[in-house]
């Protein structure tokens, strides 16, 4: 199978395929290209409520990637405003249910709870970390935006994004290796 690694960076075409996820390892730098969907706190709450009521989700999450982001308003002529990752931990309470529904990847920042790591392993998913605060830089990788659902939520609405070479690190791989549990060890002084 194809696995393109250029200058130490894994080039990934979305949607994620299981065989691609299987080879991703904690700590690998990646570029993601293709379609991703935005969702943060309020959208997650609504999606999980919809799942509990057995209603359709605003988009088919099967095999897709969600980006935890609430962008700034676009300036005139811009595709999107600044769009960096928000803290993923706030989504932890909702995430296992959405992974169970078929979501394969997440992009956010910082650590995840034990139940989320367990669900990542159980459903063969991957969690990417982008660099928090680098919202101007990351918005450059976003080429097209379409409003999908929950427009009333404003910045928290669900948007479909077309991204090119969006930079992110494999933070938790499908084996449960977690950079937020392992990364500090090499650099901590006794």
């Amino acid at each position, binding site marked *: 199978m194809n696995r393109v690694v250029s200058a130490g960076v894994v080039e990934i075409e979305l949607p994620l395929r299981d065989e691609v996820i299987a080879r991703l390892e904690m700590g690998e730098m990646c570029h993601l290209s293709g379609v991703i969907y935005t969702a943060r706190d309020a959208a997650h709450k609504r999606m999980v409520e919809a799942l509990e009521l057995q209603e359709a989700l605003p988009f088919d999450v099967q095999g897709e990637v969600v980006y935890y982001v609430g962008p700034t308003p676009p300036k005139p002529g811009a595709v999107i405003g600044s769009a960096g990752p928000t803290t993923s931990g706030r989504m932890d309470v909702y995430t296992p249910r959405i992974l169970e529904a078929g979501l394969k990847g997440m992009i956010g920042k910082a650590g995840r709870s034990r139940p989320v790591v367990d669900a990542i392993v159980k459903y063969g998913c991957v969690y990417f970390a982008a660099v*928090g605060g680098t919202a*101007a*830089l990351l*918005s450059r990788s976003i080429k097209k935006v379409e409003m999908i659902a929950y427009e009333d939520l404003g910045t928290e609405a669900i948007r479909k994004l077309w991204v090119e070479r969006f930079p992110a*690190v494999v933070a938790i791989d499908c084996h449960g290796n977690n950079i937020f549990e*392992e990364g500090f060890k090499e650099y901590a*002084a006794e």
Partner: protein
Amino acid sequence: MRVIDVAEVTAKIRDMAIESNYNVDPEYLAQIESAKASESSPLGRNILNQITENAELASAERVPYCQDTGLSVVFADVGQDVHFTGGSLESAINEGVRQGYRDGYLRGSVVNDPLRRENTKDNTPAVIHYRVVPGDHFVLYFAAKGTGSENMSMARMLKPSDGREGILRTVVEHVFESGGNPCPPILLGIGLGGSIEKAAQIAKWSLFRPLGRPNPDLLVADLEQDILKAVNRTGVGPMGMGGDTTCVAVHIETYPCHIGALPICINVECHAHRHAELEF
């Protein structure tokens, strides 16, 4: 007595909101730049590079550095000989926030009520702290405080017997447990003493100090340095993914306290360090 028209306050707050969100503290960026040489994690260096590249882009293109353009926090030092005309000072500050967030294409990140949680869409109201000072000075301090770091802040009532060692241990454990959540490399603002709310207020105020300037009390400055060294030995590193660069500076402010108390508040600041001050 000095007379100030509040319309002037609105105009200045508007500009501070926009400029601080496009141009974060250059001294903070200088610290990150110099940390690149000492950071031993390759991923950590890569992250520091992305941070400085982002800063250059945000300034050059006049766009927000971070999509979380923050809660507006204002300290207003008001001379007791100043008289404001043209309306309410508080309304004028909020109007400045409203105009700045609208005109600067900044994100409205404030909900009207902690339970109802409806976005006010214009980032108002600001959190405002007034301090009455002698004379006819009027100084406004503005911060756009990101919530990834604000959420990692904490207050605790230590015991006097916990002392210096207890303070040091509390801060180091807290930074370690916070991991990548507050977007390291961080700045630590620490309030020691007073009461629970005084500790929180001076912790916030310490973030307005020029970056890395030590507390003038040598005993406190020494503790600042010891905390800085200790948190940079945790290995948390840039964005919590491991490395040597966890914290760029520690600012401690103190206040007298009760014989039975040792209040501490840790207000964590992210690398999107956005603040401005203006003397009228």
